[in-house]
Structures are given as structure tokens and as C-alpha cells.
């Protein structure tokens, strides 16, 4: 465990909660909040009837986090239905991804989750129809800058995010699990063909279990910016525990990783979930997945980078290397998404935009306290 990480041990063993002091809770609540895992922790304690053992002050924060998460889940479930109605109008089939899929399919990672947007997958040839059907129902594009539009449409695997004009919810429309410019490129047609309907889910579809795990692993280790590395790892752990109850799942997972060329992300997923979260995975499965490990020279470096980046993102967990580790992994993720000659101009532009945002800063002085 990273130095000072009070959160992960408690997530793994919630029964330790009654032994925590107020000073311990002071650290746990802050780490939990920064890692976007406070509601998850609260839910685990609540499920085991341990919330009442938490002193009143920290308990109120846990309960508040659960209230927020419940609201998010209700909103996502509603949005998924609205999106379904809009796309049915355009006769466009779609598959829910990530958080929205966990909610729709009532999977364990849904509990305590916070959502910033909804991700869906459509067939590349139907993108225009999807955009049109959504536009008619109130979703409009957010990135009006022609550069950003090009970045998303041409190089990435998604349209620029759509925002609903009235509800302000954000929808990310993907046509593949990874960008066309990326080194790993699982065949979207295969992924599409294996998607399954949600039981009682009114026509909603999600990825099949193996693909869901592989997508989550790929997103964490190859696609994302590791803002919520620990949260994503906790999701993976929850998915593996849930699907892993079926013995037939594991051979399917290994075969599918080979079939889609996603052996490396699977290796990382099993390595770090077993190491950090004690996920119950048979040693034979881990060994088999390790055939796709990076070269022996790279392994210690990746271990060091990930171990620092998978701790809660809070000053109490920071070691001197952490900002560097995160930055290196951020660069790596972008490198894996885009070739170098495209990457540098893009990163420069992103840095520019951060210094000169188009939106004015939040101005609390006039009494408006809305976070931007």
C-alpha cells in the first residue's frame, strides 16, 4: 500500500471501522472524497450495518456522500431511458458503457458511484443518424472549436460530448472502445456482436461480461488520465468478483483478451487488482494473463508508476514522486492514443486552453456560489 493510504485497507476490510479514531476518520473521509470513493465506502459500511459504529461527525459525511450517489444513480437511470427513447426514434441501436451500464444492469460498481457523463457505443455507420435523433431530443454538441471537433471526430473514437440543453447532462457517443489512432484497436464489430440485453431493462444493452472487464481495464491502463485510478481499480475488482462467481467466466475472459488483442490491459488489471485489492483470481489465470506482460525491463517501472498513481489522490498519500508519476502516466496514455507527431501539438494546445479558458472564472464575490 502507498504510504498513508488509510482508505484502501478500510475498503477491503470494512469490519475495521469500529476501531478507527476520530483522527483516523479525519484522514479517511478526505482521502475517500478525493478518490471519489466516499460513497462506495459508506455503502459497504451500510451493507454490513456498521454505519452506526462511526462517530457522528464523520458519519454525516458518509451519509451525505450516499445521498449524492443515490441522486446520481437515479439521474443516470432516467437519462439512459431518455437516450433510449431518443435513439429508438431514430431506429439506432446502442450499447451502454461504463457507469451507465453498471446502473442499468444493477452491477456492484454502481453502488456509491458518481457520474459526470454517460457513455454509449453506436455503430460507426449510424453515427450521423444517432447525432440527428439526439439533436431532435435536445442534445447539442459542446465543443464548437473546429480543432476540438476534428480531434474528436477524426482521431478519437467518440464524438465531441453532447449536452442536453435543458437537463445539462453530458453524453459521450463512441463508435469504438479505443481511438483509431491507438496502438490497441479491438474490433468494434466483434464487441458489438457480443453485447447483451439487460434483463427487464426495456431494450437497453450492455457489453458482455468479458468485454465489460476488458473495456474497464483498457480504459484504466491505456486510455484514461488516472484521475480516479483507485476508483477505477475498485470497479474492476467489483466486476471480477461478481462475474468470477461463474467458473466459465475466466477461460472466456482469457480467450476474449487474445481475440481482441487486449492481453496487456488484462495482465495489468489482474496484476494490480490481486496485489492491491486482494481480488480472488486463480493463480493459473494470473499466470496465463502474464504472458502478455511487458518486457522484464519495463515491469518494475510500470509497477512503480502505477503503484503511486493508484493511491488516493490526496496530499496525505502523496510521496515526492507522485506528481511526476501521474504526469508520466498521463503522457503515456496520450501517447498510446495518438502518435507522437499528432500528440505534441495537441498537448500544447490543451495547455494553452487551460491558461486561457474561454469561460470567466467563478466569481464568489457577488454571492453566486456555483462551482463552475
Amino acid at each position, binding site marked *: 500500500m502507498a504510504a498513508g493510504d488509510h482508505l484502501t485497507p478500510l475498503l477491503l476490510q470494512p469490519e475495521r471501522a469500529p476501531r478507527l479514531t*476520530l*483522527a483516523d*476518520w*479525519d484522514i479517511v*473521509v*478526505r482521502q475517500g*472524497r*478525493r478518490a471519489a470513493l466516499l460513497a462506495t465506502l459508506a455503502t459497504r459500511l451500510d451493507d454490513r450495518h456498521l454505519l452506526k459504529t462511526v*462517530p457522528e*461527525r*464523520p458519519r*454525516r*459525511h458518509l*451519509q*451525505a456522500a450516499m*445521498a*449524492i450517489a*443515490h*441522486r446520481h444513480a*437515479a439521474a443516470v437511470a432516467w437519462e439512459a431511458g431518455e437516450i433510449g427513447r431518443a435513439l429508438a426514434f431514430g431506429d439506432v441501436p446502442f450499447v451502454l458503457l461504463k457507469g451507465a451500464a453498471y446502473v442499468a444492469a444493477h452491477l456492484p460498481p454502481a453502488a456509491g458511484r458518481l457520474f459526470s457523463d454517460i457513455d454509449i457505443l453506436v455503430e460507426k455507420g449510424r453515427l450521423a443518424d444517432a447525432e440527428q435523433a439526439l439533436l431532435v431530443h435536445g442534445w447539442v454538441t459542446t465543443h464548437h472549436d473546429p480543432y476540438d471537433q476534428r480531434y474528436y471526430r477524426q482521431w478519437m473514437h467518440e464524438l465531441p460530448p453532447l449536452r442536453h440543453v435543458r437537463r445539462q447532462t453530458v453524453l459521450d457517443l463512441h463508435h469504438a472502445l479505443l481511438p483509431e489512432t491507438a496502438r490497441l484497436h479491438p474490433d468494434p464489430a466483434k464487441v458489438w456482436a457480443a453485447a447483451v440485453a439487460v434483463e427487464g431493462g426495456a431494450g437497453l444493452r450492455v457489453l458482455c461480461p468479458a468485454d465489460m472487464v476488458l473495456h474497464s481495464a483498457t480504459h484504466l491502463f491505456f486510455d484514461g488520465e488516472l484521475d480516479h485510478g483507485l476508483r477505477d481499480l475498485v470497479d474492476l475488482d467489483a466486476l471480477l468478483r461478481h462475474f468470477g462467481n461463474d467458473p466459465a467466466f475466466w477461460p472466456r475472459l482469457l480467450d476474449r483478451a487474445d481475440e481482441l488483442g487486449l492481453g496487456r490491459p488484462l495482465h495489468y488489471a489482474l496484476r494490480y487488482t490481486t496485489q492491491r485489492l486482494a481480488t480472488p483470481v486463480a493463480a493459473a489465470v494470473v499466470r496465463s494473463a502474464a504472458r502478455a506482460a511487458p518486457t522484464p525491463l519495463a515491469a518494475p517501472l510500470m509497477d512503480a508508476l502505477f503503484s503511486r498513481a493508484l493511491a488516493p489522490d*490526496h*496530499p496525505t498519500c502523496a510521496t515526492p514522486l507522485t506528481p511526476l508519476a501521474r504526469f508520466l502516466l498521463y503522457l503515456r496514455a496520450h501517447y498510446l492514443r495518438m502518435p507522437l507527431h499528432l500528440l505534441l501539438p495537441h498537448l500544447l494546445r490543451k495547455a494553452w486552453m487551460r491558461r486561457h479558458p474561454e469561460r470567466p*472564472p*467563478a*466569481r*464568489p*464575490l*457577488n*454571492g*453566486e*456560489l456555483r*462551482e*463552475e
Partner: protein
Amino acid sequence: MKVADLPAGAVARRLRHGGLDLRLGPFIARIESPIPAVTEGITQLWAEAAVVERGFADFHVRLAPPAGLRRWFRPQVLFEFDGAAPFLPLPREQAFAFLEWGLNWCVANHAHQYLVIHAAAVERHGGVAILPAPPGSGKSTLCAGLIARGWRLLSDELTLVSLATGKVAPLPRPVSLKNESIEVIRRFAPDAVLSAPCHDTTKGNVAHMRPPATSTARDGEEAAAAWILFPRFRAGAPLELGERSRARTFMAVVENGFNYHVLGGDGFDAVATLVDRCGCFDLTYGDLTEAVATMDRLAQEQQ
């Protein structure tokens, strides 16, 4: 032990090293800052606030210069909550005001055991008047006037309605006054403690009035809501107190609710209960003395 009881220099020392833990109404805030304006603001305006032992703090906040050039050139201050900065920086002179508003943000986004309304709350004879109002409505001036004439301050900015009890919980903090209101209150309440005005290019001058010691001393006492009143200041206007329909009061409270959307159905029920038990009014006034007298009469009638 209150802030005023700390030895000279202790406030500045604790703010610089390790943080100062203060109880503010239902919350404990751990505050860190190397900036002198923050020390001054806390020493002057939070003199009556309770200093507590280090244990669990609800909100860890820090006001510090940002890294880079803006440490020295046109210096700025950054508000950090749990090590992250939710807002862009402000000019350094506004550091104490930034602390006030930053804490409001913390409460509004995390204290979901309450319905948090953007409103002032003042109490008289056991009944709380909730004054929701957009900026510029004269809410703070009226609030300052009332507490200078014996009303207890529960809050100037954030009214906390407990979901469990339905009562209003106190969070007495300095009342912010703008421009002409500063002079009005100086004349209305010559004994009130006011900070030196802070100059903001968009809003003019802002000053803070320290809450009466009695309000801070009773900051553990919830009280029942009795009125929801929408003030509107119009210079020279005759006083008008009119009833507002409960349904429209309901919608206005929702619009002024910071965390209403998080609470879902519980939020709806909380507002409904509030509206059920309160008298709902619009109050237009041009003269502060008249307005205070009207509110006093209202409080007398319900006794």
C-alpha cells in the same frame, strides 16, 4: 475557549503551522493560511468563535498564494478544499472574503443532512424568519438591522433546515454588506463592529459586520421556522407587507435551494413542511427602521 481568548500571535501561528480548528455552528473547520488578511479577519470578525481540539474536522481549507508568478506580481490567493482548488484565484486583498464564501461552498455542497437555502435566518421570540433573496435585494442590510435591534442571527447567507427535525440550525457568521449599506448600518448601529471595506472592481465595496456575541454563544440552539419573507429594498418606497401564495413560496425556496437537487424527494418534502408551517410574505421597504418595526410586530403577533 474562543478565538478572543487565544494569546497574542497564536492565531497567526496556528494558521501558518498545522491549522486552526474552529467550530462554526454545526461544523468544525480546520483553516490554514499564511496570509495576514486572513489572520486579521478571523481575529476581528470571528472573535467569538469556539476554538476546538484537533480531532475530526468537517472541512479542511487553505488560503494561500498560488504557485508561480502570481505570488508576487499582482498577488492572488487560492482557496483549497481537501488539497484541491475548486475556484480560480482572486486578488489577495479578498482573502478573508474568499474564506467566507469558500466555507459557504463547502457547506452547500456537503451538508446534506440539511436543506441548504440561500437565505438569511433570524430569530425572535422563538420563531425564525427566513429571508431568501437574490443579491441586491437588501436582505443583508435588513438582516444586519434586525440583529442590531435584538433579533438573533442564525445565518446571513446559508439557512440550514434540518431534515431530521425540520428546525433551522444556526451558522452565525459575519454579515456581508455592500456599498451604501455599509454607511446605512454604521448609522443604524454605531456600536456594531465592521471590518474595513474591501474594494472589488465589479461590486464596489464590501465590508463584514461581526455577529453579536449572544448570537454566537447560542449557535448550538436550533429554532422553529415561522416566516418565509422575501425582502425588496426600494429607496424611498413606502412599506408594503403582502402575503405570497404558498405554492409560489415553495417554488422560490426551491430556486434558492443550494442542495435541493441532491436531496430529491426528501428535499421536496422538507420544503413542503417548511411552507406548511410558515407565514409567507413579500416585504418592500425604503426605510430600515420601518422594516425592523414591521418585523417586530410580526414576531409579537405570533406569540
